[in-house]
């Protein structure tokens, strides 16, 4: 039988507010356990939550970016369950009336086809703390630094049909929240994590199969592997006459498999009800319109603009707009270089990105600024150096040896463009290689490259390649 996979993702994006969603405690990552938990985060008797307005603005920003409805009135509810790292015995979340409703996100499939994925809702909620099971001699430690950190839970429709689509969607969202500067996207620190609802059904069937929910996937690779494992598991189960049980599963990256965590029967009845400590959240249309006006250029729009404005290929534009930082860097170089968008694109995507990756640096940490890179590329454009020499200059700049012109000057890398000087070298090379000359003239065209190489070698690569080509061609044709 042929099977169809149906996937929906719930993504938790930690909002980049400075303080927590219902208290003034800091959200900074990595502090000593419980150093960033105030009376409210600890759930002391008598404390009350006060909503962080910045978290609301970030949620609205996200809603506008996915073309969703911003609920003029939404409600915070309590999700009741007991867990040691949940201080109040309930999590404040949004249940029946979330702040962001019904949006969409376009993803591009491998064959270049664009697919629209529905986003059912995005709601604000607080994160729980962490239980630490090591180092306590059979007991557990509780760290409440994370308790009360604002989260935006983004719930997709079951529109995804493969692990690859799921990853494409997740990557797109990841780029979007970073573009909007509402989430730092750091998956290792848990700032962006995913639960995947996976089911399979006979191809052509309308009815959804029973789903399993895989919890807490914190890398794109894990999402792909976990979903693929789960699809195979469910199909094998169904084909051998079994049935999928609705349950929560955990992915074990070491074994590459998912394991049952709890079944539906064991699932909590969360006894949701509106939190009486918080008023209904009202968002007036003035704020929404102002935020819409303040929205930054979004990835898709930027990509289209790059294609048009810089006459880049769709691929190049896609790579350059993958993050806002890279796109901004690219545009800064183009501006400083006063043109040559294709040359700039090649360099930013090529040597520059490679160097960042090699040294594991962010753009902000790059030793070569946009203006410095532009100055280097200008030396290619004005024929001071060749593209090949430019790579050498770039490495020197990266190593902190100075600006492009200084490096070129110090290393004597200025391109030779003097025709007579180049002609002189060519004459010498031809004279020194009579055998190759004879072979070339008898029709072995490929030896042209050999002569170019020899000329470049003699000039330490400094001869202008175009001039070398032209002059060499003429000289070799002479009798």
């Amino acid at each position: 039988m042929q099977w169809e996979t149906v996937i929906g993702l719930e993504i938790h994006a930690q909002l980049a507010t400075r303080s927590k969603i219902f208290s003034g405690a800091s959200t900074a990552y990595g502090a000593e356990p419980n150093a960033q938990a105030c009376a409210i985060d600890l759930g002391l008797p008598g404390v009350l939550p006060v909503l962080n307005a910045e978290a609301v603005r970030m949620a609205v920003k996200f809603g506008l970016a996915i073309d969703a409805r911003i609920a003029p009135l939404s409600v915070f509810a309590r999700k009741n369950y007991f867990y040691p790292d949940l201080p109040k015995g309930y999590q404040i979340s949004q249940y029946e009336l979330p702040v962001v409703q019904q949006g969409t996100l376009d993803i591009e499939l491998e064959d270049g086809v664009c697919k629209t994925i529905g986003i059912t809702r995005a709601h604000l909620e607080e994160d729980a703390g962490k239980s630490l099971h090591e180092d306590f001699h059979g007991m557990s430690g509780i760290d409440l630094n994370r308790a009360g950190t604002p989260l935006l839970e983004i719930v997709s429709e079951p529109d995804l049909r493969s692990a690859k689509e799921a990853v494409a969607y997740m990557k797109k969202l990841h780029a979007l929240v970073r573009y909007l500067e509402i989430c730092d996207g750091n998956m290792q620190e848990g700032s962006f994590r995913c639960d995947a609802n996976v089911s399979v059904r006979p191809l052509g069937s309308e009815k959804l199969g029973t789903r399993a929910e895989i919890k807490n996937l914190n890398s794109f690779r894990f999402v792909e592997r976990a979903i693929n494992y789960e699809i195979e598991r469910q199909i094998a189960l169904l084909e051998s006459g079994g049935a999928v049980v609705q349950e929560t599963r955990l992915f074990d990256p070491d074994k590459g498999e998912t394991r049952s965590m709890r079944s539906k029967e064991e699932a909590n009845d969360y006894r949701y009800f509106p939190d009486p400590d918080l008023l209904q959240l009202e968002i007036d249309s003035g704020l929404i319109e102002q935020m819409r006006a303040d929205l930054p250029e979004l990835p898709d729009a930027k990509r289209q603009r790059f294609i048009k404005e810089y006459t880049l290929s769709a691929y190049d534009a896609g790579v350059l707009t993958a993050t806002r930082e890279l796109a901004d860097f690219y545009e800064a170089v183009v501006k400083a270089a006063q043109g040559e968008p294709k040359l700039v694109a090649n360099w930013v995507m090529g040597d520059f990105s490679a160097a960042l990756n090699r040294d594991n640096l962010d753009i902000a940490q790059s030793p070569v600024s946009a203006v410095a890179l532009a100055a280097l590329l200008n030396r290619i454009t004005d024929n001071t150096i060749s593209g090949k020499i430019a790579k050498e200059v770039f490495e020197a700049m990266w190593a902190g040896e100075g600006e492009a012109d200084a490096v070129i000057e110090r290393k004597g890398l200025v391109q030779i463009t003097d025709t007579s000087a180049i002609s002189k070298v060519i004459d010498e090379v031809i004279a020194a290689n009579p055998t190759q000359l004879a072979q070339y003239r008898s029709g072995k065209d490929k030896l042209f490259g050999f002569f170019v190489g020899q000329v470049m070698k003699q000039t330490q690569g400094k001869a202008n390649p175009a001039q070398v080509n032209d002059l060499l061609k003429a000289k070799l044709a002479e009798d």
Partner: protein
Amino acid sequence: MHNKTIAQLSAGLARGEFSSVELTQSYLERIKRLDVQLNSFITQTGDLALEAARAADARRAKGEAGPLTGIPIAHKDIFCTQGVKTSCASKMLDNFISPYNATVIERFAAAGCPMLGKTNMDEFAMGSSNETSVYGPVKNPWDLQRVPGGSSGGSAAAVAARLAPAATGTDTGGSIRQPAALTGITGIKPTYGRVSRFGMIAFASSLDQAGPMAHTAQDCALLLNVMAGFDPRDSTCVDQPVPDYTATLDQPLKGLKIGLPKEFFAEGMEPEVAAVIEAAVAQYRQLGAICVDISLPNSGLSVPAYYVVAPAECSSNLARFDGVRYGYRCAQPKDLLDLYTRSRGEGFGAEVKRRIMVGTYALSAGYYDAYYLKAQKVRRLIADDFKRAFSEVDIILGPTTPTTAFKLGEKTDDPVTMYLSDIYTIAVNLAGLPGLSMPAGFAQGLPVGVQLIGSYFDEARLLNAAHQYQQHTDWHTRLPTGFEG
């Protein structure tokens, strides 16, 4: 000194007749001597009180005293007090020393009021007789065999017996007004949102409201001036200017329209209580008020609606008491579930557990619509009844309780009968309105309270109406036998 109102004590302090230290000492001495009969205090904070009294005297010497500077008061043990045990009368919090102050506590400290101690109450404010306290019941100073009412029973008994000139209380379904009525004192539950709930241990968040308990409406006005006002730490606290509640106390009542809800004068009320209320109505007529019959047709639904909403919220509010971070933890827990079940099973008393279970049930999947949602709809109907009534009248008058103080143990085995003792007060909480109870007479030697209900944020009018009544009656000056000296 103990027979004086706060207004009189304040004048005495201002004239230098006595110092705050002397005043505080005299109350501390009374507490020491007399509270053995009443059990109205859980914690006495004599040293802190004297320290604050000295500071108040110093402040007065510098000419910086406010109206309440130097007046000692007692706080219900539901308010978090920094460095002082805050137990909510529960074994669960018997070991809890709060690391912070409730807003109400902060405001009284800033006003210069020494804290005499923390008063006894029903456990987590759940009860109408002060019999659910883990520290034992409070006795009614008018008859030591009887309850003082609850849940602010300790505050009520302490004020009635003149162990404190005033005390704070909280009122979720009548917990200020019912004990005020049963002990012959004056207490007001303000509009929901008028006083900050920050640091007040939550029972039912949408109903809880703090208020003052004292001898007179004038004293309540002075106290409410300190308590009321916006607090950014409580999202349900309303940002609305606070009038000076003492400024309008002397307004004449001529033309005041008082509504008498026929549902409050129906069966269930003891005839002697009814007679006292009728007399109060007659007094108001004499003062020039116009009394008209009104109807609150849905008021009969208030007790059942309340006993869905309040337990539902409490079941969630009390989930934080889990033995993990503070409070009671069972001995030698086997595992996490054992830690939870035994800590909560052993730490909470029977009435608290009953309400947690009722509330958990009411919120459960499949029952939510039938109970919680339905109760919220009823709540809206009850609020609409009042809204309609206040389009015709200025205030509403009726009994605070159907009976006078009952005997200790009389209703402990019958929760429903116990719940019905709040039948006239609960609707006010469900609607979020201000309500006041003041002494209006006696039935067989026990105080009877009359209740005044106002429209939203109309506390000033209630206090004015009560003050005018007290200018022409002396019920509020009566002292229980055995506590005169």
